[in-house]
């Protein structure tokens, strides 16, 4: 395996090319869904339940319907005949998983604050919002269920027909022989048992959701414009749910202002706008307010984790046991039950674990907003648990946490490495990433400063934390998804079309919302075809233009979609080579292609540029016998494996033990995402991801009262960090190409989030460990830290 320190820039690939997307975004020209001007559209507003759990006794819409400018009012019961199927859950993780029927508007009961109860259609957004205030709903309130242990007890069964709040229990027991896990724990020199809470997070993409549906006047076609990450998946699901012939539904994701997993869903409002546009024959639009977004858009995380590690004399892991309870919320959304399962393969981290692994997860309903994918989706949670537990083990063994990790890293020469789960990790050099990070943060120097400063009585205490991680991305080999009961494939499609004038159109099935695919895909094509990236146009996010796709999530776009683009270029070159050989009267096998020109090996004068071949393919006047006109190729690529980016993050903090305030001093992220297409984009992804994970560690949490009311329902209450709340991020990298795909790329969208929460919290606990503190819950607010110090009770 080739391992280099620097990305290899060959032509444009690997350079810091500026983004093509930026001029339109910087000048206000980009059109987000709620920017669209749609004459004749009615505005929809949704009346939402103020109760977490209640029966709907009656709904009186008379006053709302009478308000001037109101065109229609519908309740859930009115619209029951408009649905062909309940809202979709595409990931029934077990055959006996319980999934309550779920329609876009509640009919007889509400199951979380924010559950839709009725809608108004009106001439303006403000009239629609005025009108929902006039709808009179009588509720019969029931007990809320807001705590996972309470939910598990079935004290209150939320969906009575199911008979229990437990939706499923999913197990993964991997043992060399029966009882190997228990045997390992019995034989262990060291064991740790840790309990961690993954608080609920609000994804908070800066663009709230927005939907507009435009019906065609004749023929029944509907165009759904929506702020989504998944126009293709949504088209399939919406056609089934609303009962629209799939070829009559076009889904377009205009400019989308961030997703982070929260726009990877099929939402009630999308289905309502479709059904109501069909019903009324006029365009219908809906713009989510931020206060709606916090309750009506999915939330992330929400788990209680128990992790046990067994280790031998040297602190080498011999077994891992994990028990999770995962909060589903009031209903199952698109992939709600699968999110904790995505983490199931990562609770042994980047460590060489024998076949002694026992994982079990129970998904339970609560009367809270449904959970679903949020940046990292199961993998930050898993990484948090193993990396926090590794620090606990290091304290138990009495070695430095970095040393403990080095003893357990999968050795580089073992790659490709068949893990205990049967998954094959593609490539890695964990010691190298850790060493680079340690050098960047001056690990040994900081340890010396820490020893000098954290003396008895010190009220400013230093801590350093680290986390080594796998990202597990490139979702995903379709056969693996099948084995996980996931209802779709994991392939991606690309078309590369060389136009007669030799400009290039790329059609991709990925659906960017800030990641810079137009730039990155142009760079891949320019590199392959030897042309200027400015001559490449990337078309995406419209099912009429890009009919095939699996969209953007799970750090899949580059290692699946970008690879498909590169493979389509190879097919174009292969076809062009046949035409070139014909024109040069040479054998195709003797042709070389570089810099956009075909040359006959050994005959430097015999050459023809791709541009000439493109035009020849267009005129088709003189093509080789049997060759189709035009120069275009389509590839649908199903990856043979996940990709396995990895890295080590380190962080230093200083904590004021008198106030509990945490000052993050330095943050170093060393990420290896294989070959880098554009280091600017890679670093940008890492910066943003790190701050999102740091935000979970220090600031954010969806706080509910015992009645299920969200206490952090606005950006004034939910502590999403501002620039002044976070430090600069130092990025480093190594480059270990993936052997799985021809570009050697791995993906990077979630790495920052996966590595950072555990890194920050390990630093926090490290700073306080001299005071007897072994755990601090997230978010580590000054109050929480102060409480942890005082609960530990050690004299400072």
């Amino acid at each position, binding site marked *: 395996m080739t391992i280099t320190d620097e990305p290899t820039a060959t032509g444009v690939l690997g350079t810091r090319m500026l983004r093509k997307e930026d001029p339109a975004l910087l000048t206000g020209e980009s059109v987000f869904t709620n920017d669209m001007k749609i004459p004749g559209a009615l505005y929809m507003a949704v009346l939402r339940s103020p109760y977490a759990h209640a029966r709907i006794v009656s709904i009186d819409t008379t006053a709302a319907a009478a308000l001037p400018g109101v065109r229609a009012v519908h309740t859930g019961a009115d619209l029951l005949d408009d649905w062909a199927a309940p809202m979709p859950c595409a990931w029934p993780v077990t055959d006996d998983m319980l999934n309550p029927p779920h329609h876009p508007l509640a009919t007889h009961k509400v199951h979380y604050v924010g559950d839709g109860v009725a809608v108004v259609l009106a001439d303006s957004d403000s009239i629609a919002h005025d009108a929902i205030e006039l709808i009179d709903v009588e509720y019969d309130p029931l007990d809320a269920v807001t705590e996972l242990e309470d939910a598990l007890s079935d004290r209150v069964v939320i969906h009575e027909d199911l008979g229990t709040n437990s939706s499923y229990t999913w197990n993964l027991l991997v043992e060399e022989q029966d009882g190997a896990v228990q045997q390992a724990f019995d034989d262990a020199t060291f064991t740790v048992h840790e309990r961690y809470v993954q608080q609920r997070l609000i994804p908070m993409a800066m663009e709230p959701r927005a939907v507009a549906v435009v019906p065609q006047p004749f023929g029944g076609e509907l165009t759904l414009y929506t702020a989504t990450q998944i126009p293709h998946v949504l088209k399939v699901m919406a056609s089934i749910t609303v009962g629209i012939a799939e070829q009559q539904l076009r889904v377009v994701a205009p400019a989308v202002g961030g997703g982070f997993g929260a726009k990877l869903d099929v939402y009630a409002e999308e289905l309502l706008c479709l059904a109501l546009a069909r019903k009324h024959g006029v365009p219908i639009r809906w713009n989510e307010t931020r206060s709606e977004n916090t309750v009506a858009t999915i939330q992330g995380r929400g788990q209680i984790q128990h992790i046990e590690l067994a280790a031998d004399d040297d602190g080498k892991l011999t077994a891992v046991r994990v028990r999770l309870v995962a909060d589903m919320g009031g209903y199952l959304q698109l992939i709600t039950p699968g999110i904790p399962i995505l983490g199931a393969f990562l609770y042994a981290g980047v460590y060489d674990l024998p076949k002694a692994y026992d994982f079990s997860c129970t998904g339970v309903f609560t009367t809270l907003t449904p959970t679903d994918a949020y940046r990292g989706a199961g993998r930050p949670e898993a990484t948090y648990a193993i990396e926090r537990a590794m620090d606990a083990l290091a304290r138990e063994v009495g070695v430095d946490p970095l040393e403990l990790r080095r003893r357990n890293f999968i050795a580089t020469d073992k790659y490709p490495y068949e893990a205990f789960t049967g998954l094959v990790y593609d490539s890695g050099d964990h010691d190298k990433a850790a060493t680079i990070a340690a050098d960047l943060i001056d690990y040994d120097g900081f340890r010396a400063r820490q020893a000098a400063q954290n003396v008895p009585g010190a009220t400013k205490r230093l801590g350093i934390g680290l986390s080594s991680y796998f990202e597990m991305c490139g979702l995903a080999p379709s056969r693996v998804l099948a084995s996980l009961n996931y209802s779709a494939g994991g392939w991606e499609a690309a078309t590369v079309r060389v136009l007669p004038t030799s400009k290039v159109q790329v059609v991709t099935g990925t659906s960017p919302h*800030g990641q810079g695919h137009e730039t990155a895909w142009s760079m891949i094509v320019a590199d392959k075809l030897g042309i200027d990236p400015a001559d490449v146009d990337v078309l995406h996010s419209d099912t009429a233009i890009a009919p095939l796709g699996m969209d953007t999530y799970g750090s899949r776009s580059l290692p699946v979609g970008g690879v498909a683009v590169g493979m389509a270029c190879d097919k174009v070159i292969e076809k062009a080579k046949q035409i070139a050989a014909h024109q040069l009267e040479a054998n195709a096998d003797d042709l070389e292609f570089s810099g956009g020109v075909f040359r006959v090996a050994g005959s430097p004068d015999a050459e023809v540029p791709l541009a000439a071949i493109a035009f020849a393919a267009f005129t088709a006047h003189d093509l080789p016998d049997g060759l189709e006109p035009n120069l275009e190729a389509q590839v649908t690529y199903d990856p043979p494996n996940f990709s396995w980016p990895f890295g080590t993050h380190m962080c230093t903090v200083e904590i004021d033990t008198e106030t509990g305030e945490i000052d993050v001093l330095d943050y170093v992220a060393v990420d290896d995402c294989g070959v880098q297409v554009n280091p600017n984009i890679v670093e940008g992804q890492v910066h943003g991801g790190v701050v999102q994970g740091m935000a979970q560690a220090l600031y954010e949490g969806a706080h509910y009262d015992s009645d299920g009311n969200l206490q952090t329902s606005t950006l004034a209450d939910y502590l999403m960090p501002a620039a*002044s709340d976070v430090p600069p991020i130092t990025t480093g990298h190594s480059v270990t190409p993936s052997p799985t795909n021809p570009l050697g790329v791995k993906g990077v969208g979630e790495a920052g989030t996966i590595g950072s929460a555990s890194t920050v919290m390990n630093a926090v606990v490290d700073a306080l460990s001299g005071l007897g503190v072994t755990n601090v819950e997230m978010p580590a607010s000054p109050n929480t830290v102060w409480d942890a110090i005082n609960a530990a009770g050690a004299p400072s």
Partner: protein
Amino acid sequence: MGASVEITVTVNGTAHTHDVEPRTLLVQYIREHVGLTGTNIGCDTSSCGACSIHLDGEAVKSCTVLAVQADGMDVRTIEGMAAADGTLHPMQQAFMENHGLQCGYCTPGMVMAATSLLEENPNPTEEDVRLGLEGNLCRCTGYHNIVKSVLAAADS
């Protein structure tokens, strides 16, 4: 709802006269009446700063001002930042060169706030920039490259 009120607001150098409901926010006026949608709405509590514009030369969150309060005033939005020939404003250019944006939704507000920040403090420290932009939220960039962009614009 009350009776409509006629207002005249100069937006990016052009005077506009419209009848508006008294409750209309300036951001709604800019987006729905003037038709300039570069100014985005990210919250309903004046927390996120996505709707930041310049009002008589000062950066304000345009959701905190009623349209009627802007009667007779001068508004500059993101659409008014680049030169007529399309040349980007130095702040826009700095954001582009330093990868200071990803999804771009907070970006118009960030650019307007940052421009105003440099007018008040042409040579800010990194800390000055972080504090100066604390009213503008971004979910994509972790702020690292936004701060870098503003410092680069200050140097240019």
